[in-house]
């Protein structure tokens, strides 16, 4: 694998569960060092995409290449990828230390000192039984497991789901930042992408089994506008324009991109409107509906 080659490349991925199309010709690439948010509604296929990349699920068609390897059912790929599942699970009869020792035996690049350091940072008690861990503590342990073997690619599936504020903060401002700064490629799926906004380089929207939108994070942060109009007949939705709300004659629109905004202005369809930069949460919501 060359330095500039994508760390992850998915081409034409299709996966059906029965008659339900979950992935429908999905194309996706991640460059080295990129932090990408995958945005999608429940059941949109985010976890399925991760499992295909991890070689846990076989696609019906299409190809995947991650870190120069293609999924072959052998599980080798999982040795190179750090993965934090949405619901981490461990053998309840093992202690935290045993879990780490057990995992260490499968990952050649396992860094014991790093694992111990992370445990200390996260306040994990090595003697605690995995079966007794709270959701938050289990999530921390999952983080240690995902990062202790120094993977170049991390897949984080709803990594903060169900966690309290302090743990989320710990993870977001501590771990992900640290990993991202280390030049790793990180792909994150999260319902609350707003809280990750500062970390992301790109945001991809997974809809209808495909990547329906792919934007630079800066674009979302700086070029997504809220347009508030007081008109009986506001502009209809179109590519780059999404109605956020409508109450009587007051409508709120999300407009993506400076050019689109200028186009609306030039066409005098938003004359007299109040224009401001859209906050991240609202921007992601709008993206989901885009």
């Amino acid at each position, binding site marked *: 694998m060359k330095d500039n080659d994508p760390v992850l490349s998915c081409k034409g991925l299709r*996966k*059906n*569960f029965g008659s339900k199309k979950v992935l429908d010709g999905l194309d996706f690439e991640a460059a080295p060092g990129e932090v990408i948010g995958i945005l999608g509604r429940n059941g949109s296929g985010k976890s399925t995409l991760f499992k295909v990349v*991890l070689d*846990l*699920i*076989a696609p*019906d068609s299409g190809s995947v290449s991650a870190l120069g390897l293609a999924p072959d*059912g*052998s*599980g*080798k*790929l*999982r*040795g*190179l990828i750090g*993965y934090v*599942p949405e*619901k*981490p*699970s*461990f*053998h309840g*009869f093992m202690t935290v230390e045993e879990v780490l020792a*057990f*995992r260490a*035996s*499968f*990952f050649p690049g396992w860094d014991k000192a790093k694992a111990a350091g992370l445990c200390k940072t996260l306040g994990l008690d090595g003697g605690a039984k995995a079966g007794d861990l709270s959701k938050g503590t289990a999530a921390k342990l999952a983080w240690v497991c995902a990062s202790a073997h120094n993977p170049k690619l991390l897949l984080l599936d709803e990594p903060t789901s169900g966690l309290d504020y302090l743990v989320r903060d710990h993870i977001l401002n501590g771990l992900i930042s640290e990993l991202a700064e280390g030049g790793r490629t990180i792909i994150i799926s999260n319902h609350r992408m707003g809280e990750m906004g500062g970390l992301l380089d790109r945001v991809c929207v997974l809809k209808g089994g495909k990547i329906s939108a792919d934007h630079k994070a800066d674009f979302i942060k700086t070029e997504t506008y809220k347009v508030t109009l007081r008109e009986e007949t506001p502009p209809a939705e179109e590519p780059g324009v999404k109605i956020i709300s409508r109450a009587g004659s007051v409508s709120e629109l999300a407009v993506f991109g400076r050019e689109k905004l200028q186009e609306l202005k030039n066409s005098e369809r938003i004359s007299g409107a109040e224009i401001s930069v859209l906050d991240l949460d609202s921007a992601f919501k709008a993206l989901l509906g885009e």
Partner: protein
Amino acid sequence: MKNLIKLQLKKSFLSFAVILAAILFSVPLALWVKAAAMTPREAINLAMLYWAAAGIPLVVLILSGIAGAEAAKEQARTTEQPLPVSQYGLLLSSLAAVLLELGVLILAVYAILGFNLPLETLSKIQEEILRLYIFAMVYLTLYGFVFSYAFGNGIAGAMTGAAAVAFTLYPFVTMSVFQQLAFELVPMLFIKPAVSAAALAGGALALKLLSGVNDRKAAWTASKLTAVVMLLAAAPLASFASLAWLNLKARNVTLPVTRMFASPYAVDKHLYASRDIKEASRLLLVQRPFYGDAFFIDKEGNRSMIDAGRKIPGPGLSYLFPDLTFANAESVFAPSGVRYLLYMPQAGGNRIMQGNAKTGFAFRAAVKNGWSMDLLGGKEPGILHRRDDGYYYSPLTPEKAGLNWRQISTIKEGYLTFLGEKYRREGTAAVFRKDGKTLEYRGRRWTIPGAAGTRLPVPGIELADGMNFIVPAEINKKAVTYLCRPNGKAELIWPEYFRLTQNLSLTPDGAVWGVGIKSLQSYGSPAVKIINPEFYILTAEGTPLSAVNTRGIMERTGVTNGEIRLLKAGGGYLWFNADNRYMVRAGIKNMEDLKIWRLPAVPRKRGYYYARAGAVSPSPDGIFVAATDGVYFMDWEGSSKKIY
């Protein structure tokens, strides 16, 4: 993989430990509840028998059922599958853990038995059962696991697995028992590994396909579903197919109908039965045990039905094992051209039949206890019957139907005097004078030094020059055999002891032969002892041959068990039946001058009787071979044809 297996063992440690403890606890328990008549060792053995026969199979089903069902659960997916090993590898590790536990349980039982099965020696069938047991346990583990994984339910999976194993083993066991007790018709040496491989590989491959669907969420396709079903059904189907094959093979098996305990030698009564051996041997009485029918057949394949047998309903396949029925019979050929038959079918009454190949055979009389009867040939054929109160005799004449019994002696007196009288009356025996050394026949006398004379007449043999008599004698404390020729000379023919009614046989061409067995170290491995028969032969022309060594035949045919019999002697050659596998022609002057013909495969039982009781029957023109697939006739030049 090692770490995964350790993990799986750790997961099931509690259940396994409880079961192991139960096995260990059953030792003091057995001692506590044992019957007073039992020794402590017997009580422990009994407890271990329970574990081996019922406990361990049940435990294996439970352990494999739990392991299989757990492997299918979401918990296993989320906990173990993210590890960098194949999902199939995870399943195999779980299966390997159960197999290891099975091994430990068996080892525990074996250790409690003192690493020694409580049997003095293992019979072939017991050895077979032991091997089968180990295979069955492994098979049960695999299929219990696979089905439990497929259903995601340990109980349903274990039950289905047990059913699959039972369906495979049932024909397997019946075939093994049949082949041990009856005939080897299908190659179990090939079938056993094939079915075992189908069972083990089928289960393992089906598990891989199921893993693809269950774990990797690959779509079910018709071809995948068919493949899984076929892989899991391969072993039971192969096993049943083998049993069906055995059934089909058993249909065509032919056996000569003889007396079960007939001696291969021309002993007293049977000597009489075989006096007209030349004519008698032109027909072979054959039975088909699968159908229970019996018929005489000649070298052209013409048949005369003796017993129509039974009707086989439907396809006639028996899934216990082929239901065979055997008949016994004895026949004599009278100078009148009539053949008499004492026929004793397994089903139906014993009966005397008479007739010939041209007109067929008819019922003459029903008899009871045919086992204690013997036909006597000669000028006046008859039937001898041993009853509780003495020996009875009835002549057999074509004119008179039924039987006309009269007592000839008490049990204590025996029948030999009567037989001797019959020989003498018919002019086929000589008698010793009172000196015990001079033999007399129709005015001719032979004086034999050291003759082992008896008060009984000496049956003669008809050679080219007339009636000859074979007399054993002792010279210088060494046993020898004389031939009293019609020209009045007594000639020492063999430096060994032979007597016609004890250790000599007759061939249809009139030759007389006996065997001196020599055990030799093998020509191959020195550790293997082979039996090398040396033949003592008197050809129909009257030429005596001594210590004819068959080592060359054994080397060329690979027969090491001494099962070599003379078929014909004449024209400068000897014809042998080598272990019912080859007909061999050897030059009298040069026993290395061999011509060998392979015989059709004959039903071969492992026991003594069927291996030698006349699957190959000589006749004047060649040999009948009652083979596994019909009856063949091979002439003396080795030209063979299937006649039935």
